[in-house]
């Protein structure tokens, strides 16, 4: 097997005096769809923040496409092609949908490339084409989520991480978001998905990591997960 694109090795992290992550290791290979599951508040988002450089790790190392990137700040990680679509969307509220998307391609200067990506995003998320000139703050929850996803795709990264893209949306919209995830997977992109709803994630994933109370509790592929209901029950509380 070739070297993984992303390799997290024995990472610790925390806020004042409390470890949120303990001894976390995880590998993501090129073209894989990896999901990180576990209950709310158990360090999933913290893990993504550590990888994307929003948060400093308190130990361990992170390698991305062969380089040691431990301790690099978020802009440097973005420049290396690691995209993080954060929880809660974090849109630029007073910018239009179009401007938000263009910020996604901030590091790309080739206009033709930007044009092509924009067309791709509009093809996957057609609603965004209709809402082009609307201010982000006036969008509905589902539309905001789509802008956040589209903005992440505009970066054209080598690895894209989604933090709970279905959080807080009505089930109908969640289905649409997962259709997008499926399309991204089929297009061969490398993806890390953080998700509370393990069942949904299991159907897509090449590999799953279960995070419990800041530590890695179980890993395997989607089918193995579905075959082991006791894992589901003991960690996700039925």
């Amino acid at each position, binding site marked *: 097997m070739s070297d993984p694109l992303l390799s997290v090795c024995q990472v610790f992290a925390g806020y*004042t*005096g409390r470890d949120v992550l303990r001894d976390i290791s995880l590998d993501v290979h090129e073209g894989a769809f990896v999901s990180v599951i576990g209950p709310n*508040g158990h360090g999933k988002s913290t893990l993504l923040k550590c990888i994307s450089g929003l948060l400093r790790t308190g130990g361990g190392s992170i390698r991305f496409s062969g380089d040691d990137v431990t301790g690099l700040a978020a802009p440097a990680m973005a420049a290396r092609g690691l995209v993080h679509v954060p929880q809660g969307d974090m849109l630029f509220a007073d910018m239009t949908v179009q401007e938000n998307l263009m910020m996604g391609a901030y590091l790309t200067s080739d206009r033709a490339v930007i044009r092509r990506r924009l067309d791709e995003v509009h093809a996957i998320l057609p609603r965004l084409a209709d809402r082009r000139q609307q201010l982000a703050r006036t969008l509905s*929850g589902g539309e905001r989520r789509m802008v956040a996803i589209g903005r992440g795709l505009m970066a054209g990264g080598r690895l894209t991480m989604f933090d709970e893209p279905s*959080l807080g949306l*009505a*089930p*109908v919209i969640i289905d649409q978001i997962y259709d997008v995830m499926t399309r991204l997977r089929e297009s061969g992109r490398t993806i890390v998905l953080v998700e509370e709803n393990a*069942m949904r994630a299991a159907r897509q994933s090449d590999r799953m990591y279960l995070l419990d109370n800041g530590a890695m509790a179980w890993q395997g592929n989607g089918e193995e997960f579905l075959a082991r209901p006791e894992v589901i029950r003991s960690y996700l509380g*039925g």
Partner: protein
Amino acid sequence: MDELSQETARSPRPLLVVDGVSKYFGALAAVDNLSFEVMPGEVLGIGGPNGAGKTTLFDVITGLDRASSGHILFAGDDITRAGPERICHAGIARTFQLNAGFDTLSVRENIEVAAIYGHEAPVFPGFRVRPVIRRRVDEALELSGLTDRATTPAGELAVLERKLLMVATAIVTQPRLLMLDEPVGGLTQAEMDAFVAMLARIRGEGMAIILIEHVMRFLVTLADRVLIMHHGERIYEGRPDDLANDRRVVDVYLGDGAADLIRAALDPGAAP
């Protein structure tokens, strides 16, 4: 009207009446013409997707935000336009989703300040904490299991402890209605059990509770009655056991998988 007066004659008067309350943010109706009642000693669970207006409803009831229209009565008094201090003194105490705390105050001081100012407004609070207040603070520390942490600054507490502290500062104001906003979000199974145990102790004192919760298992096991909100409106109100059978709730909010889990939670004997 006639029917209503007959109703009140038969049953005890409701503690809280929310009557046609709406809250608009610009054109968006966060709470849309909502009405419900809470009886003394009752536990009402409120569920619904994010952005359904649950926390806004809490903000409006507790005076942190003003209702755009409608009325709110508590124990017969109109509190629609009252500020949060007055509502606290009237007997409503709430907790917050993001685990609010006075971070530079110690755990003990957090509870003390609520005990001094929360039950009634002192004309002048004096220069010392009165013994009767100290006793109530000790009780609240005991009840919430935070006695060992009394001198720790609240900012250094772990998630569960912060939640317990928030409840302790609420009950020390001696409320008749306790409103909990996502009390167990982010807790592990064991922590959730600890929290439920504490709530059971509080409930013995006949306090009414309204709780917002995403963890449906928690909601349905604790609540006497459930209200589900969507886009600021009520889409379901009734017994928790019927919840999973309501087509609209399943479609809009729960999804089929979760509905199965709720049935299982309410009936541990049945296979999921």
